């Protein structure tokens, strides 16, 4: 072989090595479970060692509530679940919007149910505190699920008793059924009557309300039928029934306890704001003492910092 041929041989060998390395490299990484799947595993195996962080309406301090930018920010912060609100437009699209109308959060006007997707897309979202326009559009459920796919889970609000079918259709189409936690206030019989076996195909997290005098049976009926692995637990006082259920029946069963640190009446005053003003132990720490496995917050960055400092954000703690 002359030099020229050696060069070609060299190139061929180099090419083989590189492509082989590529294949081996891929195999070495294997078909890894995505972060979203691992988050789901954490939710299904509630522990006191990894506290799940759920960010309310995305990180609305950083970007407009319910916007893709607010979701991306949560992904960047390492949040586990984002709670978002969805409503159905006049022409049948689910869009991320908290209020009935678009008035507060966009530069447009009107009820979501009386606007088309095209009309809503022409509006721009405002920042928090009503501070002008952000350039961000109202996202559809489909856009949200494509953004979060593999990265983070979503807790769907406002869809509970009306739009589960429409939402499920989008989740199936985008391959994200395992990314979405539905929630709701209705009892299990109402949900069964309305949605039948669809309830077995979705992840459903019922809400336990202190105002419900029958909340114990409400919980038991869910246990007997759907057997959810998580409950959103709301307690206006320390003596409220849902907190008692969480600390006794749910704990014994190993079901997850989500505490809502947003406002006084949802968590016996142990709010995010209290955490900032009086120290995190007085609020988030107290919720952990009650046995909360997940906290919904308006302060995701600060909460993650607090939990990390306590060694409660060891994401790999499941992999044993």
């Amino acid at each position: 072989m002359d030099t020229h041929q050696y060069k070609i041989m060299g190139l061929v060998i180099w090419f083989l090595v590189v492509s082989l390395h590529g294949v081996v490299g891929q195999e070495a990484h294997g078909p890894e479970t995505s972060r979203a799947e691992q988050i789901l595993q954490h939710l299904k195996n509630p522990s006191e060692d990894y506290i799940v962080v759920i960010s309310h309406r995305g990180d609305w301090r950083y970007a407009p509530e319910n916007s893709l930018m607010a979701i991306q920010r949560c992904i960047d912060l390492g949040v586990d679940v984002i709670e978002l609100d969805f409503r159905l437009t006049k022409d049948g699209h689910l869009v991320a919007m908290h209020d009935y109308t678009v008035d507060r959060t966009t530069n447009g006007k009107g009820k979501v149910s009386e606007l088309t997707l095209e009309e809503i897309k022409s509006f721009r979202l405002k920042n928090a505190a009503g501070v002008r326009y952000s350039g961000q559009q109202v996202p559809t459920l489909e856009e949200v699920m494509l953004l979060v796919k593999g990265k983070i889970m979503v807790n769907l609000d406002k869809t509970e008793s009306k739009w589960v079918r429409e939402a499920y259709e989008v989740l199936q189409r985008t391959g994200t059924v395992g990314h979405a936690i539905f929630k709701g206030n209705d009892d299990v019989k109402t949900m069964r009557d309305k949605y039948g076996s669809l309830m077995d195909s979705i992840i459903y997290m019922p809400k336990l309300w202190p105002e419900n005098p029958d909340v114990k049976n409400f919980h038991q009926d869910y246990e007997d039928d759907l057997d959810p692995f998580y409950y959103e637990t709301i307690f206006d006082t320390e003596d409220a029934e849902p907190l008692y259920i969480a600390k006794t029946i749910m704990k014994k069963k190993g079901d997850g306890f989500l505490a809502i640190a947003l406002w006084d009446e949802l968590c016996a005053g142990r709010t995010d704001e209290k955490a900032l003003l009086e120290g995190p132990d007085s609020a988030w720490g107290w919720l952990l003492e009650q046995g909360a496995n997940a906290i919904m917050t308006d302060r995701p960055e600060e909460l993650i910092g607090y939990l990390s400092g306590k060694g409660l954000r060891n994401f790999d703690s499941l992999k044993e």
Partner: protein
Amino acid sequence: MKKYIFITTMSLLGLAGCRENKVQEQGNDPVEPQVVQSDANPVSIDELIANLEDSHNDQVIVVAHRGDWRNAPENSLQAIQNCIDMGVDMVEIDVRQTKDGQLVLMHDVTVDRTTTGTGKVSELTWEYLQSLQLRDGIGHSTPHKIPTLEEALEVCKGKILVNLDKSYDIFDKCYEVMEKTGTQNQVVIKGGIPYSQVKEEFGSYLDKVFFMPIVRLNDPKAKQHIDEYLEQAIPVAFEFTVPQDTISLIGDFDDIREKGASVWVNSLWPQHNGGNDDEKAALDPSVYEWFLENNIDMIQTDRPQILIDFLRSKNLHR
């Protein structure tokens, strides 16, 4: 990661600390709150004022619109304190007068959007306003209260420059509070009016506080207004509204600074800065380059943290 945890913990401690101070302060006792500074080397107010008066140096002054409204209710004491802790140079706050003559911080004509109450500030009493809670950015009530101008200036005193918006028509009363709190030298007042009018209406204050004219660059008389100020009394700064970044007057900014006035442009909304706004910068901070390229040395922003990080990376902010 450790560093991140440390910083977050420190800021939580800082915030917790502030509250303790505020609780002490509530007993109607005019004790100055002891501020827990997160910045190891806080810049003194004298340095901030010197930087404000110096239009030639390369340090850029960061002005936070309505305080740190993302992390505390807009125009609250906590929103001001957060700015101080963040290293913001100047906080923009809005002042209004109640029916019974109390000066309070409030942006809107009514209290509806930002508090748990309803009605026009000018038709409500201070006693009623004290019963209200401020709302957060998504409209939920918080433990924070409407501050008086006096409380706000006490927090700012010796710590941070102040831009007092909506104060022009009630300036005699505002000035009394500035004198009482000893903050006259930290406050900037602004107005979109020509020199002759300012001289007539505001003349007695011109050598006591900083007055900053606002000039819209698409105003046909813009050049005339600027020249009049430069000839009669060079202001500490001009605020320019720059609807398109092709306006030729932008080319005069270096001249204006050479003559002794700083150049203030808002990064808030695209119509202020030819489309080089905070929201674009949140996605790509290099958008702020436009301000540097055009000799702008004061920027009012809704993204103080991102802007400060950007400027510090260029050694243009201490």
